[in-house]
């Protein structure tokens, strides 16, 4: 009787333990999958868009980063931008475009991301009304970076984080740092991890809105 109970207990323990590990493993896999799922890059531009109202700083390389003011993942992108600009502040002028829908008040973009962007060397935050500038750069995702040389030619575009919200070494950051140090990029593009700058479709509008 006692032996049977012991066997049952062991089986229960083994079975429940396996279910538990599978559940936790599945959850981790979903989390990893989410973290490693990049946003889609629509298309590339080759030169600084002439319609842009952002003044191109002549004699400097110009870097543009698009940002959603409430995207948690973009916090990591700004940290990486700060690292890049620490090395490249003498070569690069950076502009961070914070998308602001016209129906939202001004304080909507006054987040910690906005304040962080303004503390980065040779960088200034710009309000991008309804994402008009982002559209000119064909940007769709928060955290996407465009690097133009002194002539306005695009030399790199993509994300500067290795995954969603993950700081640390990554392909985009390395490409820009290589250009700063050696004058040539080792990669012309990378995956972008961040929130979508634009509302994807009308069906999504059914989701909650926050004003």
């Amino acid at each position: 009787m006692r032996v049977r109970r012991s066997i049952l207990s062991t089986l229960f323990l083994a079975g429940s333990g396996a279910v538990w590990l599978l559940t936790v493993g599945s959850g981790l896999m979903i989390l990893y999958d989410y973290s490693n799922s990049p946003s889609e890059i629509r298309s590339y531009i080759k030169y600084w868009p002439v319609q842009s109202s952002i003044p191109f700083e002549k004699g400097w390389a110009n870097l543009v980063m698009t940002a959603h003011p409430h995207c948690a993942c973009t916090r990591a992108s700004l940290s990486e931008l700060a690292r890049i600009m620490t090395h490249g502040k003498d070569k690069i002028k950076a502009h961070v475009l914070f998308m602001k829908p016209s129906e939202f008040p001004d304080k909507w973009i006054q987040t910690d991301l906005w304040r962080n962007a303004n503390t980065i060397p040779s960088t200034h935050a710009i309000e991008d009304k309804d994402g008009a500038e982002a559209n000119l750069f064909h940007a769709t995702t928060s955290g996407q970076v465009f690097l133009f040389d002194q002539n306005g030619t695009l030399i790199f575009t993509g994300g500067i984080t290795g995954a969603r919200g993950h700081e640390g070494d990554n392909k985009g950051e390395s490409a820009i740092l290589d250009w700063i140090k050696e004058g040539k990029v080792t990669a012309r593009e990378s995956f972008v991890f961040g929130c979508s700058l634009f509302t994807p479709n009308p069906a999504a509008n059914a989701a909650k809105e926050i004003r």
Partner: protein
Amino acid sequence: MNYPALSLRSKALFEDHQIAIFKQTDRMFAYLMVLQWIAAILTAFIVSPRSWYGTINEVHIHVWTAIFLGGAISAYPLFFALRHPGETYTRHVIAVAQMLWSAILIHLTGGRIETHFHVFGSLAFLSFYRDWKVLIPATIVIAADHFIRGTFWPQSVFGVLNASPWRWIEHAWWVLFENTFLFISCRRSIKEMWNIAENTAKLEITKQIIEAEVEERTKELQLANQQLQAEIHTREMAERELKETQTQLVESEKTATVARLAAGAAHEVKNPLAIIRQGVDFLSSEGSSEEDKKVKASVLGDMSNAINRADGIIHSLLDVSSQSKFNPTQADINNVINQALILTKNQLDKKQIQAIKELAKNLPSLQLDKDRLIHVFINLINNAVDAMNIGGTLRLKTYIKPNDPSLAPFLKDVEDSKQIVTVEILDSGSGIPEDVLDHIFDPFFTTKRKIGGVGLGLSIVRNIIQMHSGCIQIKNRSDAQGVRVLIYFPVKENKDKKEAA
């Protein structure tokens, strides 16, 4: 000491202690699991509450992950910690869960090296179990996590894009490095627990031995006490019997004394009565001649003397039995002695005896029955005169001396006295034979029966002196021939002074 019992008890105590530690640590980890879960949810809500798509948003996947994945990781060990605390599998499940928390945290922080401290902290916490085996599943899980993620997604665990395929071994090595110290710590803790268990077992067994010994001794004492009680009872019975016997003896002695007194009195009174009877018979006979008248007058004189003698004997017997009233008054002993000397002057002069007085002045006055004491001194002086030849010397002294403890057995109320008035009478007579000295105070003991002594004199003297709380000693003189009489009267200061006032 019983070593198998000690070993068994030590083992039991050690296991109890170990189970208590396991359960306590399980409880601590249960709290930690809940805290980590709550902290993860709060952090997700603060750092990444929502995902944005332009102007619309939804709950961020990190929040759902914190709630459900965090909940899944914590709930399973929490169940075992609450339902099966102290079990081996409980702490192993907890170890695995804690390492899964480390894996998630490392992932969410992008493989930040700082977050790896959660692994080391968790291992240290797991060592609270003092069971190094619990470090094994923890080490396996964290090493496997580092291996899998290091291989497929190194940035998640090491924070870099390209990591060496062996880097997970480096991390695992550091875990083993810490495990080495935790292993040593666990072993030491176990050893200390064994020491504590052994010492406690020794104390317990020693206590049991002492308690058994105390119980045995108590029983022995109780037995001895019972025996002692029985002995005391027997002794009390014996003492009671002894007292009864003594009482009977005293009664017998009294009866004997009364009988002796009665016999003495009868003997002494018999002679005068015989004389009186003969006288009565003679006086009843006829005869009226002048010769008869002379003879009858002589017989009447003899009868009168016999009656006086019988009356004296009866009076003396009354003194001996103290039936007559004792009437003390405040008086000076020197005056009493002087009066006695006046009354005995005729006897002293007949034998030309020189009486020398050395009476101390300023003696304290005493409570004295003067008449009786005069009788005492007359008796003593007469005895001395009888013992001395013509031209002897009689010396009478009075003086005061400090209380003498050696007199305590003979004096009444001597505790109240600081001083003793002493009367000393010294004669130059023939002294008293030693075999007679022991009997001189016995009633009707006399060496002068031929000359009319009845043997009550000294008995009466001692009786009267004892009435005055005093005592008398009669011994032969050591400095010359003769007898030395010493009479002591304690001075009852308070009483005497008050009465004097």
